[in-house]
C-alpha cells in the first residue's frame, strides 16, 4: 500500500450502477459499443470480425429471426417477436467460413430439446423457437440483437447420441469457442430453463446530489454482494451475471 505522500500510481475504476432490468437500453447500447470498439481496436481478436473464421461442423442458422433493426427499442417485448418463428440447424461444408456466436451455459438436470441422429434431418428442416428452453431462447435473442446470424449451442450442434460425433466435437470445442465472434455466457442461469434476461435481484441504488466547493455532482451507492473478477478463456465474452 502506498503512503499518503507518494504520487498515485494506480488508478481504479468505478463501475456503473447495476440496473434491475437486464435488457436496459444502456446495457444493450454498451454491449454493441464494446463489440464495435473491439472490432476496431483489438488487433489480437480483430480477425473475429471478418468472415475468414472456420465454422463449426454444425451451427444454428438464426438469420431468419428478427434482427437489430426490428428489435431496437422494443426490448420489453422481444419474446413476442420470436414467438412462432422457426430457425434451422445448418451442417457446414469443410472450409466454410463465417461469423457466429457461441453459448456457454449450464444444462441443469435435463434438456428438453437435443439433436440426435434421429432428429438431425428434422432440425435441418426447422426448429421451433418456442420449443427451446429459456436460456437458449435468450442467447438467440442477444445474438440477433447484435445482428449475428449463426450461433453454436452444444446440445443442438452435437449429436447427443453419437459417441463418434461427440468425441470429435469435444476435441474441437476449444476452437469453436475461440473462433466465435462472441461468446454469450449465461452465468446467472442455473439451468437451461431459467434464462438470463429476466429482472435482476439487486437493491435499488441510492442517488445523491453532492455539493462541494467546485459545484454539484451525482454519487450513487448500491448494495451488492461480494463481487469477483470474471476470468475467461475466450477472446470475447459477454457475461450475464446476477450482479
Amino acid at each position, binding site marked *: *500500500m*502506498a*503512503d*499518503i505522500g507518494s504520487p*498515485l500510481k*494506480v*488508478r*481504479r*475504476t*468505478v*463501475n*456503473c*450502477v*447495476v*440496473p434491475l432490468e437486464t435488457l*436496459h437500453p*444502456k446495457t444493450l*447500447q*454498451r454491449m454493441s*459499443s464494446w463489440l464495435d*470498439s473491439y472490432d476496431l481496436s483489438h488487433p489480437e481478436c480483430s480477425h473475429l470480425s471478418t468472415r475468414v473464421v472456420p465454422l463449426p461442423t454444425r451451427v444454428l442458422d438464426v438469420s431468419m429471426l428478427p434482427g437489430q433493426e426490428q428489435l431496437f427499442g422494443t426490448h420489453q417485448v422481444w419474446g413476442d417477436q420470436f414467438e412462432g418463428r422457426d430457425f434451422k440447424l445448418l451442417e457446414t461444408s469443410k472450409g466454410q467460413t463465417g461469423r457466429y456466436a457461441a453459448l456457454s451455459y449450464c444444462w441443469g438436470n435435463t434438456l428438453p430439446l437435443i439433436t440426435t441422429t434421429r432428429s438431425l434431418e428434422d432440425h435441418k428442416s426447422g426448429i421451433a423457437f418456442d420449443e427451446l428452453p429459456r436460456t437458449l431462447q435468450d442467447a438467440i435473442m442477444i445474438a440477433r440483437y447484435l445482428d449475428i446470424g449463426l450461433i453454436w449451442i452444444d446440445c443442438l450442434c452435437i449429436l447427443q447420441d453419437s459417441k463418434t460425433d461427440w468425441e470429435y466435437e469435444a476435441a474441437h470445442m476449444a476452437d469453436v469457442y475461440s473462433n466465435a465472434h462472441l461468446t454469450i455466457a449465461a452465468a446467472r442461469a442455473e439451468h437451461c430453463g431459467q434464462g438470463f434476461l429476466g429482472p435482476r435481484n439487486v*437493491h435499488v*441504488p*441510492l*442517488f*445523491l446530489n*453532492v*455539493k*462541494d466547493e*467546485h*459545484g*454539484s*455532482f*451525482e*454519487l*450513487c*451507492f*448500491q*448494495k*451488492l*454482494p*461480494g*463481487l*469477483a*473478477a470474471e476470468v475467461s478463456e475466450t477472446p470475447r465474452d459477454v457475461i450475464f451475471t446476477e450482479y
Partner: protein
Amino acid sequence: MALCNVCGSIPWRELITFQLNAQYGFRFNAAGRTTSTVSEDIPWRTRRCTIAEIVSRAKTCPLCAFVLLMMQQNTWVITRGDREGTLFAWDEIRAAIPRNMMVWMTLSDDWNSYKRLAVSLGNPRHGETRTMDLHLRLPFGNLDTHHNRDVKLIG
C-alpha cells in the same frame, strides 16, 4: 438534504474522478472517532460509530439514512465465537451484540478494484459480522467510464 459533516468530509469527487484512491480513506476522524486498528499511515480510513449516532444523523443525512436502511434490511452473519456462521435479522443482531454495539465502516479498494463502503457490526474493538457492501457506483448514463477514465460530472 445535505450530507452530514462526517459524510461530507469524504473526498467523493476525487474518488470518482480517480484523483484519489479509496485506500487513502475517508476523513472520518472529523468526528474524532478514528481507530487504531488500521495502519497509522491511513488514519482516516475506518469509521466507527454507535447505532444511536447513525440513527440521529440519518434524520438529516441521506447517506447515513441509506446506510441505516440497508443495515436494517440486511441479513447479518456472525464471524466470531460459537455463533459463527449464524444468520441474524436486524432485530436479532441487535440482541446478539447487545452491549456497546458499534457500526464499523471501512472504505475498501481491494484487488478486484471495486470501491465500496464495507459495513459491519461489532463491539468497540472490532467488527463481529461479515461486511455488508455498499458499492460506490456511477449513474448508468456514464457509458464510457469503464474504459475512459475522464468521468463527466454534472454541475
